[in-house]
């Protein structure tokens, strides 16, 4: 057993798919009047397209692709600020690879690198800290990006830098949290959602209790899901069963990885290092209250915003999206990716115009890569 292959078993999938078809029928959902389930996490969006799950499930079930791709929701102004820091003399900017091609207003990080800025891809923030140790004469900045899955690794790296007195290391913090945008989506009167597939790896850190409000206050089911095809199918079935039975509960399909209370060490490290920002801008969704994290004053020495005077709200705000880019409409479920006039022509994974085409977790890139355009057109 390796805890992955077992959850890709096609024979077991057949049974779950049949149950999904049966329950969708029992709900009375049809192609014309489908049941809408949002997978919040970009990892789930990717898995749905990679395994073609949207083609295997009945037409009465429609997936709405949520805002859970951190690269995709990053506003252009933050890329601009990151480029600005990276272009300062003496700086080594470090970043996860998927942020390199996100378009900024002036340029992306990869364009800045081509223009001479010292920008390096790292696998872990610990690698950025190691780089700082090796280059004591340089300022090493880590482009901290991601949801609760990734926030603890950055927090623990800052705590390590503080313990080591490594002061030529800092973090440009763009970490964001999942529950506030879900609340914003639920408060949007145009949004028609019947239930959620909850993010598995975010939940292994924060646990399942932060989703209680979805069931309690909004009466919607949510099932925290793993990332193998069987995990996703089983979770969808659990959501559908709740809808059929008129229940709204927080359930945990991914219990082999997600403890109900999350990971206490991670939660404590994040509480120590971060404070919520009053609000943070999400590409396509706008400003959302208390959805972003900043570094607490106690760790200001490792906060790139403080060190370089490039702060949230200090630069010009609301940089317009590129002409014709409809990432915002895709992200809120108003249109499918291929309904954007730029899809596949002015915007491709090689030359992305909008952020959803950049990351493999973005809905547009998934559609492009796995042929959503061709298949949907054929149906």
């Amino acid at each position: 057993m390796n805890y992955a292959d077992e959850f890709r078993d096609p024979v077991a999938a057949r049974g779950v798919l049949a149950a999904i078809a049966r329950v969708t029928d029992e709900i009375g959902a049809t192609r014309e009047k489908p049941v809408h389930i949002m997978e919040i996490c970009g990892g789930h969006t990717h898995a749905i397209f990679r395994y073609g799950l949207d083609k295997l499930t009945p037409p009465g079930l429609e997936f709405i692709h949520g805002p859970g791709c951190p690269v995709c929701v990053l506003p252009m102004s933050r890329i601009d600020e990151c480029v600005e820091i990276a272009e300062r003399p003496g700086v080594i900017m470090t970043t996860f690879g998927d942020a390199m091609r996100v378009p900024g207003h002036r340029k992306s990080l990869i364009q800045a690198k081509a223009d001479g800025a010292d920008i390096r891809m790292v696998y872990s923030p610990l690698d950025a800290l190691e780089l700082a140790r090796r280059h004591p004469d340089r300022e090493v900045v880590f482009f901290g990006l991601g949801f609760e899955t990734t926030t603890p690794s950055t927090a623990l790296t800052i705590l390590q830098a503080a313990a080591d007195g490594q002061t030529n290391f800092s973090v440009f913090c763009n970490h964001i949290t999942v529950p506030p945008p879900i609340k914003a989506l639920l408060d949007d009167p145009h949004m028609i959602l019947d239930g959620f597939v909850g993010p598995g790896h975010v939940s292994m850190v924060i646990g399942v209790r932060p989703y209680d409000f979805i069931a309690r206050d909004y009466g919607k089911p949510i099932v925290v899901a793993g990332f193998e095809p069987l995990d996703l199918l089983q979770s969808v079935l659990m959501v559908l069963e709740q809808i059929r039975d008129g229940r709204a509960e927080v359930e945990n399909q991914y219990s082999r990885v997600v403890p109900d209370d999350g990971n206490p060490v991670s939660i404590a490290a994040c509480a120590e290092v971060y404070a919520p920002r009053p609000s943070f801008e999400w590409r396509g969704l706008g400003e959302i209250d208390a959805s972003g994290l900043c570094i607490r004053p106690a760790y200001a020495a490792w906060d790139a915003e403080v060190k370089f005077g490039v702060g949230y709200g200090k630069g010009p705000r609301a940089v317009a999206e590129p002409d014709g880019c409809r990432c915002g409409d895709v992200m809120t479920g108003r249109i499918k990716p291929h309904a954007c006039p730029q899809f596949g022509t002015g915007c491709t994974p090689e030359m992305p115009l909008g952020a959803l085409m950049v990351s493999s977790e973005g809905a547009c890139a998934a559609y492009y890569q796995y042929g959503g355009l061709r298949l949907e057109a054929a149906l």
Partner: protein
Amino acid sequence: MGVRRQVNVACILKDEPIEALIGTWSLIHVGFAMSRINEEEAALTLDILRQLGEAQAEIEAMRASERMLAS
């Protein structure tokens, strides 16, 4: 096979020596072990999935039987 890499295990180490982790599975993300795989829970989930498959096989057998009787 695979990749060798140093990871930080602070998040998954309970009140125990580090050797206690040998032989366990963990989910690794950006250089950090984030969660230990709970083998009992994994087995329970697989059981449910298996039962769904068996139930489906039974339903199909029933349907086939009905079709046979109706013809």
